[in-house]
């Protein structure tokens, strides 16, 4: 394997492969930073242009794009409170507070280092464990997906902010609107009034509405009572600060990699779970949401580590681990290649060339990210009455580009107003996104499980993976309640 890997680096001496990696990274960086244009969409848009490239260059271009886009999603999450990718949603929780304190470069620096770290570590994990871990991707059947979805929902604990009840209302609302569209199992339509709703509410316009447009509305309100701009510091995190986040990065990387491998799991849930776990295991959970660096490091590590994780089942089994990886299959087949059990045997040079390219792509991404940090921090110096309309126009454009339909724009505007009202009443909007990411998986896997078991709920309790996931879910909730009570108790004592 070492021989293969060394020979894998050989193609990287060709200028066209290097160009593919750099080009992919630049495009991915922009795609990621543009809210509304997802990594999946970016790959799909560039796919037709790669038909004319040699196979390896085409794959290097697209995988570099994928990785860089996952990082790029954090840029607007940190600077504008608008996640550029769904998976960057949890990055807003602590990234934006840091910006408000005038420290955007700290958050951006942490984000790029965590993304780079996760990218490298997960690629090494991919190289070493792809073949043995492939079976893990297959161990997930409908009952396991259901359990994973339920476990994912417990991340609401970290998102709910001040009120549990409000967080749960958000989750339930998200699950409810998730039922719109053709029902997978019975084939009947639910709440469809127009053609565009056949496949359910699209996530991107919803994300743009809830985050970007509601943020724009909030800013417009602020503008009317003249807020004085705080000084923006360009200082990056110190070495000590990086090191203190090391555990957060490891945990995030691990969570992202594992969820990346599981083919049918909603990918954005990885960064939600990573954030939740970080808050849960932290010694100072009460500081989360006020701008702690671990809160940026964990989800950012998770969403970059997904990239390599999703390639595990893709390369070994021909089964994509994520939506973006599914589009990558198109890139393979267009070139007359078939990712799957025979790829390692028939095209080892391609596989190892791709591995080497992933490592190189992360280095390019790091360089670009560090160079860009100061630049992005400066964006905040643009007066808000100029910046806000630009953000609005760009996000609405991306929203239209995603579907080629005006309907998505109306949807985004509608959810923008909803998001604004929710924020006014201190309802967190992130639980809706979490429920949207998980809802379909939860419902369809629950019903598939019951078809498999002929109606018996025992199927959820006789399988080891589901049991472990349920137990963790219950413990996770119990622990949060326990801690909340303890805190309330000590507060009472203090009062007495």
């Amino acid at each position, binding site marked *: 394997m070492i021989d293969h890997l060394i020979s894998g680096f050989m193609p990287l001496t060709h200028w066209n492969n290097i160009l593919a990696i750099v080009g992919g990274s630049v495009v991915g960086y922009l795609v990621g930073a543009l809210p509304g244009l997802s990594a*999946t969409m970016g790959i799909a848009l560039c796919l037709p242009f790669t038909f004319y490239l040699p196979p390896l260059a085409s794959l290097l271009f697209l995988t570099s794009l994928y990785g860089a886009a996952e990082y790029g999603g954090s840029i607007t999450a940190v600077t504008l409170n608008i996640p550029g990718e769904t998976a960057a949603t949890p990055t807003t929780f602590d990234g934006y507070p840091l910006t408000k304190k005038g420290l955007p470069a700290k958050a951006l620096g942490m984000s790029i280092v965590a993304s780079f770290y996760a990218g490298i570590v997960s690629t090494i994990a991919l190289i070493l464990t792809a073949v043995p871990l492939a079976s893990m991707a297959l161990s997930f059947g409908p009952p396991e997906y259901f359990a994973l979805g339920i476990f994912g929902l417990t991340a609401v604990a970290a998102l709910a902010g001040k009120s549990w009840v409000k967080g749960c209302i958000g989750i339930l609302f998200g699950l409810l609107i998730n039922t719109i569209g053709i029902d997978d*199992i019975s084939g009947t339509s639910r709440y469809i009034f127009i053609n565009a709703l*056949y496949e359910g509410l699209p996530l991107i316009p919803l994300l743009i509405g809830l985050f970007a447009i509601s943020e724009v509305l909030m800013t417009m309100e602020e503008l009317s009572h003249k807020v004085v701009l705080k000084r923006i510091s360009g200082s990056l995190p110190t070495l000590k600060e990086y090191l203190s986040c090391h555990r957060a990065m490891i945990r995030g990387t691990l969570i992202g990699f594992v969820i990346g491998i599981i*083919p049918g799991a909603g990918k954005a849930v990885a960064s939600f779970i990573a954030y939740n776990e970080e808050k849960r295991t932290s010694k100072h959970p009460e500081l989360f949401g006020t701008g702690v660096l671990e809160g940026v490091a964990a989800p950012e590590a998770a969403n970059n580590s997904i990239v390599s994780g999703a390639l595990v089942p893709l390369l070994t089994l021909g089964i994509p681990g994520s939506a973006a990886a599914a589009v990558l299959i198109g890139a393979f087949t267009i070139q007359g290649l078939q990712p799957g059990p025979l790829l390692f045997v028939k095209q080892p040079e391609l596989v190892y060339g791709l591995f080497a390219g992933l490592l190189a792509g992360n280095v390019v991404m790091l360089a670009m990210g560090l160079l860009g940090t100061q630049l992005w921090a400066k964006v905040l110096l643009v007066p808000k009455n100029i910046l806000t309309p630009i953000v609005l126009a760009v996000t609405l454009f991306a929203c239209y580009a995603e579907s080629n339909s005006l309907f998505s724009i109306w949807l985004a505007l509608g959810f923008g107003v909803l998001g604004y009202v929710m924020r006014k009443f201190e309802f967190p909007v992130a639980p809706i996104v979490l429920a949207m990411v998980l809802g379909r998986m939860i419902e369809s896997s629950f019903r598939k499980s019951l078809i498999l078991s002929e109606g018996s709920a025992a199927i959820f309790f006789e399988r080891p993976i589901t049991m472990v996931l349920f137990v963790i879910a219950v413990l996770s909730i119990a622990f949060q309640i326990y801690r909340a009570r303890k805190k309330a108790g000590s507060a009472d004592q203090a009062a007495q």
Partner: protein
Amino acid sequence: MTIMTHLRSMLFPAALAALVGAGSLMAASPAEAADTKFPVKPVTILNSSPAGSPADVMARQIAQHAKKHLSQPMVVVNKPGGSGGVMFASLLADPTDGYTISTVTSGLITALHGDLKKDFSIDQFEFLAHVQKEPFCIAVRSDSPFKTVKEMVEYAKKNPRLKIGGQATFSALHLLALALADESGMPISYVPYRGGSEIIASLLGGHVPVVVSSPTTMNQYVEAGKVIVLVESGEKRLPQWKDVPTLKELGYDIVITQYRGFAAKKGLSADVRGILVDTIKKAMDEPGFKDYLAKNSQVAEFMGPQEFTAAVRADYQYMGKLMDKVVKK
């Protein structure tokens, strides 16, 4: 497919087509336009599945090899979503001038029996050319307790309901499973998955014992020795699987194939139709196109408008009857 729902369409080719289109429209003055030969601007091919799917690749191959035979480029624009409804709506919204055509697959035609019925009818379209066809197949994992259809039916009758995984409810794959269950008398439960990858993952992971899928999806797993194909649903055996019988050979009166071709909004002028059909036919004869077929174990078969329309209508009727017989009773 699920996961691909986020991918809506190809912005750049569309924009490019629009730009080039606008440019060439301006170039041709109204007086000239009347006697200028079709096409004077690029022809858009709408495709209801995302980039990289079998129908998309087929359309892109045709577009690429049509370059030599058409004065203007053909541009593929993906319009996924709504079980094809998004693409149908967009095809019908454009003028009937031959500048917007679409790919058509048996899946889309079957979908016209389902929810799409409310908004679209087969009579609104005309069918230009048949390009490819492929049967479906029934597969099990190589360590399955049954290795032929006969053994499967016997097994199913002795054990709890046989779970068969496949694509969406009321899809051609679903109907195939129901039809086989109906004729053989074996009790089944159908588990609908979203797309080929989910189906194969579920089979390899042992979550369902049997799946219905397409040979394109199964080829490499068969070659790797992980999967055994019990039977296929075409008229005759496939060249890559000479040992696999057809359902017809086994005595079941079921023939279901999926086809891929091109369609347009009804009412094209005879000249325009002729040029389009001729271009597709010539593109199919290009050596490059044949290479692509060989690489993907695909079989091509050209049919012109009349023959293809008859075939599509026959398939539509057949699937309708099958649906009435096995679903609605």
